[in-house]
């Protein structure tokens, strides 16, 4: 029996590392040796006994069974069911521990297995370097947002022909829009499984503000923020299929790092763009549009004839929800904070527009629905709207809380039955697009909705990348309509 043990310290909080490792079906998103993963027999990725089937970057396959998973001590164990290496009885364990004084994470990866003695050295070398240490390095790169290359960046030169110089907007610490500083970065050629993208247009979303001010635990500063961009593939890493240089692509997902003129991204997270979607439109539409698709077709399956209350009906996601919900055949009630946005809400297809004020939201809803309440509410406001939302639903209605622009909804537990037996959903967007298949389906539906003009996405505000602080002020001050994009000037449309 051979035993292996490798460990490292990752410069990121434990929650960030665990979120990536815990997903037994998500390791292809970060591990360079794995190009694809799926779970057999329709089991869920955190179900003990689930078998994941990897397609490796070199074309091989490995099947592994989850034996234990603990959110308490941040560990899981698994065994290899079959693989191409001369290995048997392989069992491995990953465990994370917090380093409490530095907010870093200690990561142990250990295993025991049988292997023919004459191949022992080679197999141990392969597993420890290509699996364990390569995995450590990818997670490190992913969570450090290429900040190390920012620090070493030089201006005006390239080290070799394959290293490109990029400009990035780095948030130096948590705070207001003033935390952004422009920095030069050197972007290496893509690692196996990645593509390097020259980013023409970059989406600015409310989630970026949560990351900037530290209220979301998605990013550790200093970091390049941003989760959404569109551009052209500049270089394709080993093992990547379906992409070529010059291809127009977009993405909308972690890890952050979109506020840059060039970046590397895991190819499994990137989607080719159809001809009818411009780069600017993609950057302004991809995240919000896929959010709307997921909310209306997956989190809640909206039916013709249902009544839907949609907050911020003139806002980024709100106006898409309104248009799409109307197309589905629902009765759409839009709510907006300012009277001057009523026109935009009507234009988005709202049958009714509510501006809470002298008459409360709840009584206006009651008037529209004959006192019944609405079937479903899409609430991105959070703390300030939660009570009103609960009171505006019909019996058995569905409250979908997808954002918290006014602050977090606290102390809403399961101690007592829900009023009116309502259902509350608090979806995590990326869970719905975390495999290449679901990403393809959701983005495909979005592109189709754009092409058929079911939704009309307006990119109303454009800023140079360097002016990201202005874009954040506009969005945070609720002064914007439609989408905001940053332009890096990398690729001409």
């Amino acid at each position, binding site marked *: 029996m051979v035993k292996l043990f490798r*460990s490292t*310290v990752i410069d990121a909080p434990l929650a960030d590392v665990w979120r990536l490792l815990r997903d037994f079906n998500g390791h292809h998103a970060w591990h360079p040796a794995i190009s694809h993963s799926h779970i057999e027999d329709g089991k869920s990725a955190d179900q003990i006994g689930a078998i994941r089937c990897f397609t490796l970057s070199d074309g091989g396959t490995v099947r592994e069974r989850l034996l234990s998973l603990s959110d308490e001590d941040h560990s899981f164990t698994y065994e290899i069911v079959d693989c191409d290496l001369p290995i048997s009885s392989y069992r491995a364990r990953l465990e994370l521990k917090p380093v*409490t004084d530095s907010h870093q994470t200690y990561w142990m990866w250990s295993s025991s297995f049988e292997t023919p003695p004459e191949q022992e050295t080679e197999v141990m070398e392969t597993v420890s370097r290509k699996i364990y240490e390569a995995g450590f390095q990818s997670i490190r790169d992913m969570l450090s947002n290429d900040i190390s290359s920012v620090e070493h960046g030089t201006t005006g030169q390239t080290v070799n022909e394959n290293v490109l110089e990029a400009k990035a907007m780095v948030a130096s610490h948590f705070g207001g829009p003033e935390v952004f500083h422009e920095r030069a970065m050197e972007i290496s050629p893509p690692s196996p499984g990645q593509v390097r993208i020259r980013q023409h247009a970059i989406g600015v979303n409310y989630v970026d503000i949560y990351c900037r001010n530290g209220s979301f635990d998605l990013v550790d500063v200093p970091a390049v923020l941003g989760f959404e961009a569109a551009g052209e593939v500049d270089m394709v890493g080993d093992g990547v299929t379906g992409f070529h240089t010059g291809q127009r692509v977009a993405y909308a997902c972690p890890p952050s790092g979109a506020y840059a003129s060039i970046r590397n991204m895991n190819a499994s997270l990137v989607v080719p763009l159809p001809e009818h979607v411009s780069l600017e439109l993609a950057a302004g539409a991809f995240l919000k549009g896929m959010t709307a698709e997921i909310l209306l077709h997956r989190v809640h399956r909206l039916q013709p004839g249902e009544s839907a209350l949609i907050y911020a009906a003139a806002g980024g996601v709100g106006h898409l929800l309104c248009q799409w919900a109307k197309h589905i055949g629902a009765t759409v009630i839009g709510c907006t904070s300012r009277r001057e946005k009523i026109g935009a809400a009507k234009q988005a297809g709202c049958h009714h527009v509510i501006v809470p004020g002298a008459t409360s939201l709840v009584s206006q809803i009651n008037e529209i629905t004959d006192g019944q309440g609405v079937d479903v509410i899409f609430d991105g406001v959070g703390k300030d709207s939660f009570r009103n939302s609960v009171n505006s639903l019909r019996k058995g209605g569905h409250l979908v809380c997808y954002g918290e622009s006014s602050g977090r909804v606290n102390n809403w537990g399961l101690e007592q039955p829900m009023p009116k037996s309502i259902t509350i959903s608090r979806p995590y967007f990326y869970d719905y697009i975390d495999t290449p298949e679901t990403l393809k389906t959701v983005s495909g539906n979005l592109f189709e909705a754009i092409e058929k003009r079911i939704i009309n996405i307006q990119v109303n505000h454009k800023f140079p990348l360097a002016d990201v602080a202005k874009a954040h002020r506009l969005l945070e001050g609720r002064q914007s309509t439609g989408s905001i994009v940053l332009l890096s000037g990398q690729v001409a449309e």
Partner: protein
Amino acid sequence: MPTVYASTLIPASVERVWTTVRDFNALPSWHPLIAQSRIEGYRPADQVGCIRAFRLKDGGFIREQLLSISDLKHSLTYSILESPMSVRDYLATIRLMPVTDTNSTVVEWGAEFSCPVDQAATLVELVEQGVFQGGLTALKQRFGG
């Protein structure tokens, strides 16, 4: 039952850090709160069951019993027999774990205990920050961290 946990990264190998930590009678040499220590009955400091009696710099007196020690796992577990704190069933473990890619060490120090509910927050803060994290910071500095 409150639990406390503190950890740190020390830029030295597990073997080096362990020579300091494994000595159940050596707290005064690295822990800033502890003035003097002796093992009762002149027993060896690595004999399971031995009791260390030590005096804190603030005058407090504590007796702790070694329950397990492992050179393999680089860990030791002990309980409190007597102390100025109103804790019962106090069980603590200090453990060293290797960081293989940098040949350094993560040290974790955790405990669980029972205490009056109204004192829990104060005792957790005292043990976790004062005793454990404070001790680990001093240990780290001893190894140049």
